[in-house]
């Protein structure tokens, strides 16, 4: 199956949770927030959030700005 991460399509194995996927990106100890199909997924729910074909994931962090 395929998901869209931060606007880029990429293949992904089926049956993974959002938690599995984020771990695979090596983002431990980073500060970020995640949206799945334009809805916030609270950190506490990554484990129980399954990913499906066509899902749009946004991983957002803080950057400089005024």
């Amino acid at each position: 199956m395929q998901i869209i991460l931060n606007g880029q399509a990429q293949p992904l194995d089926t049956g993974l949770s959002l938690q599995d996927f984020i771990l695979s990106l090596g983002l431990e100890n980073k500060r970020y927030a995640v949206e799945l199909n334009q809805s916030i997924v609270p950190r506490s729910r990554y484990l129980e959030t399954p990913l499906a074909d066509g899902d749009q994931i946004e991983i957002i962090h803080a950057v400089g700005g005024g």
Partner: protein
Amino acid sequence: MSAPLVIAGHTFESRLMVGTGKYKDLAQTQAAISASGAQIVTFALRRMNIGQEENQPNLLDFISPQTYTLLPNTAGCYTAEDAVRTCQIARELLDGHNFVKLEILGDTKTLFPNIVETLKAAERLVHDAFEVLVYTTDDPITAKQLEEIGCCAIMPLAAPIGSGLGIQNRYSLRFIIENARVPVIVDAGVGTASDAAIAMELGCDGVLMNTAIAEAKDPILMARAMGLAIEAGRHAYLAGRMPKRPYASASSTTEGYFF
């Protein structure tokens, strides 16, 4: 000592708020902010560059949420929908933090705010328990409407964002300040320390700036200058300036001349 600044029940000793954009690197950002004495620090939200940034330090490693009151902004948003979404992401990122800077742009050239979208977003955010500090024009009527919606601070521009043109319309700012029951913070347009002092002498409760510090030749020294200017301007406002008069008035006594 003057009373502290209180925004939505949060108390601040410093009346300077600073942004984190346009610095050479994060170490310079950190040093400048520290030199400014600011306690409220604003930042933006963007996509993480997955595959490139895993080992890069993040802004929040340098600007600690334990040290500073963070003020996520909605910079770059042109619609109420995008701005509300950005604030919700900020709240998740900062573990339930509700303090946000609402900024909805209307035009890429002037970066003036889109007031219709700003009013819509402000209503939705206030309803959703956000504490909204709102970027707006220097129009007193709009400022009052935003206050009535429940925004906790009104942030009129002094000049276009990043222009460094200084305070362009003192009378409008005065009207806003006179009518406001929430803090009025000049957001945008300050170019140098005297601009910040003028804003404070007019009676503004604070000033938010980014480019004036970050684009100075020596940002850390300018940050210090801005901190002092804000303090000087505030004291001058509280002290109450002398009246202006058209002709001279001798400072040395005119009695006891021996010549």
